[in-house]
């Protein structure tokens, strides 16, 4: 839009305009900036907020932010509250989208979309079976193998299965039934685990063509005695699960068979008596360089609070399994994730759509990016 000279003439300020033109260089003509990109490799603190958009759930998004600059960097438009995961080489964001031909009706098409992390544009996509689980988005509904060769998509129809996409061939190479089990917790280059309703952990090993070569089932917990929250957190090939009461169950998936680690409690007996227990959506995070675990905790535990937000985060040393710190935030935080660099941030999505930022070097809350999303269920980092 350009109207400086006519505007000058039309106004009593004409003299001032002329004077200004005479003493200052005119601003140069500009071109519309196109094809802008984000730097690669991405800053280690770059964060991707998966926005479920509960008041819509058809047209959804992933918001990309720089938490250090408190700046929105861009976004991805996703379909049907798509889960999202980042590739290990930092080049790709995968989303598992559902689209309908006529927005909410007509033919359903499910796709894996491979977005470039610099251009934030789709680089390729592949159609997948129309079975992708439609749930509140969580970490292990969509994952990748350690070498990024395979993408695993969790299906729920309500039969459960995993679709395997070969990112090299850019095609679906397998669908593996996982009856009675859910999700895909990736381990190494060719293995993933699923959590089963009978208390076992099922591990499937693939070959380089995505075909199953081995399947094991290992006793992991007693579902009649405790509620083990499926929203675990991974640290390499080791996963930490927690019960609604705060009992931690870890498992090392790096070997052929899962190695169940010694269990431990987030709380002392006295703390449990006082009412302390974990709660939230993606309620745990690990900062690998600090070897620390961060958990959303409630001071007034009740069975139905297991998915409630909190303002309190307890910090654990994973080596000693001892609580080492507490962090507080003014917001009600629902989901956590930590960056994997040596000066890590903890990011927490709050229930008003903001992103709470914690400096883990100092062990304290720093700031909140208010209103960057609507209903953020998940935050993920490179």
């Amino acid at each position, binding site marked *: 839009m350009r109207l400086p000279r006519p505007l000058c003439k039309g106004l009593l300020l004409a003299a001032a305009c002329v004077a200004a033109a005479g003493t200052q260089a005119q601003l140069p003509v500009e071109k519309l900036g196109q094809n802008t990109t984000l730097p690669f490799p991405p800053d280690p603190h770059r964060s991707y907020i998966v926005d479920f958009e509960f008041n819509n759930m058809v047209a959804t998004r992933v918001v990309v932010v720089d938490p250090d600059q408190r700046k929105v960097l861009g976004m991805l438009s996703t379909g049907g509250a798509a889960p999202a995961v980042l590739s290990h080489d930092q080049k790709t964001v995968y989303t598992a989208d559902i689209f309908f031909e006529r927005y909410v009706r007509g033919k359903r098409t499910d796709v894996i979309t491979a977005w470039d992390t610099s251009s934030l544009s789709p680089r390729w996509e592949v159609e997948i079976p129309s079975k992708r689980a439609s749930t509140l988005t969580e970490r292990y509904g969509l994952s990748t193998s350690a070498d990024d060769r395979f993408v695993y998509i969790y299906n729920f129809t309500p039969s459960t299965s995993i679709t395997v996409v070969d990112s090299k061939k850019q095609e679906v190479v397998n669908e593996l039934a996982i009856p*009675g089990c859910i999700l895909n917790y990736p381990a190494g280059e060719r293995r993933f685990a699923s959590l089963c309703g009978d208390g076992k952990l099922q591990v499937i090993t693939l070959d380089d063509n995505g075909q199953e070569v081995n399947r094991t089932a290992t006793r992991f917990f007693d579902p009649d005695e405790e509620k083990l929250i499926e929203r675990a957190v991974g640290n390499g090939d080791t996963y930490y699960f927690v019960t609604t009461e705060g009992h931690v169950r870890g498992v090392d998936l790096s070997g052929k068979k899962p190695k169940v680690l010694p269990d431990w409690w987030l709380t002392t007996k006295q703390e449990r008596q006082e009412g302390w227990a974990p709660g939230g959506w993606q309620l745990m995070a690990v900062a690998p360089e600090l070897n620390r675990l961060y958990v959303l905790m409630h001071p*007034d535990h009740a069975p139905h609070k297991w998915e*409630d937000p909190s303002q309190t985060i307890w910090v654990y040393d994973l080596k000693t399994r001892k609580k080492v710190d507490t962090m507080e935030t003014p917001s009600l935080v629902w989901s956590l994730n930590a960056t994997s660099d040596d000066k890590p941030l903890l990011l927490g999505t709050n229930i008003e759509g903001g992103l709470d930022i914690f400096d883990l070097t100092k062990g304290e809350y720093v700031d909140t990016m208010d209103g960057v999303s609507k209903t953020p269920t998940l935050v993920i980092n490179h």
Partner: protein
Amino acid sequence: MKFLDRFFERSTRHVASTTSRRRFLGRLGSFLVAGAAMPVLLPVDRTAKALAAESPQAGDPGDPTSCDYWRYCSVDGFLCSCCGGTVNSCPPGTQGSEVTWVGTCRNPADGIDYIISYNDCCGKHSCAQCACTRNDSEEPMYRPFNNNDINWCLGADANVYNCTVAVIRGVAKAG
């Protein structure tokens, strides 16, 4: 279906709260403890408010556009009564999914426990009115039929969630 109704309900309460967030949480906790201990009892006895709102019917007390209505003891989602439907019918142009999960609620008028199915109405996007959460014993997702973090529009032509109804399916037999 539950999804983020919790978010909204609690956000609203938070905004409405004139006390600190901590006290807000404390009050919320008390509410939930009561709900956990007595899942079939109403937090507020509204028997006296019988014959309210839509389809007034003796013996079915309460306001079906209110989260406190007795049949909603396990509901999670947007109430279809606020979305163009009723307590047991879907809004125009939406399709009810027969795949669902059920709860048991006590009618304060007759003291009988009824089996209620919480069917999702589907095929239009989120109604976004009257978000309501009255949790019962939800289980982790490996017990899917006791979990409401799942979109239960699975049984509809399009798995696009609009709202939830609460249909009486029978009387719960003791034992």
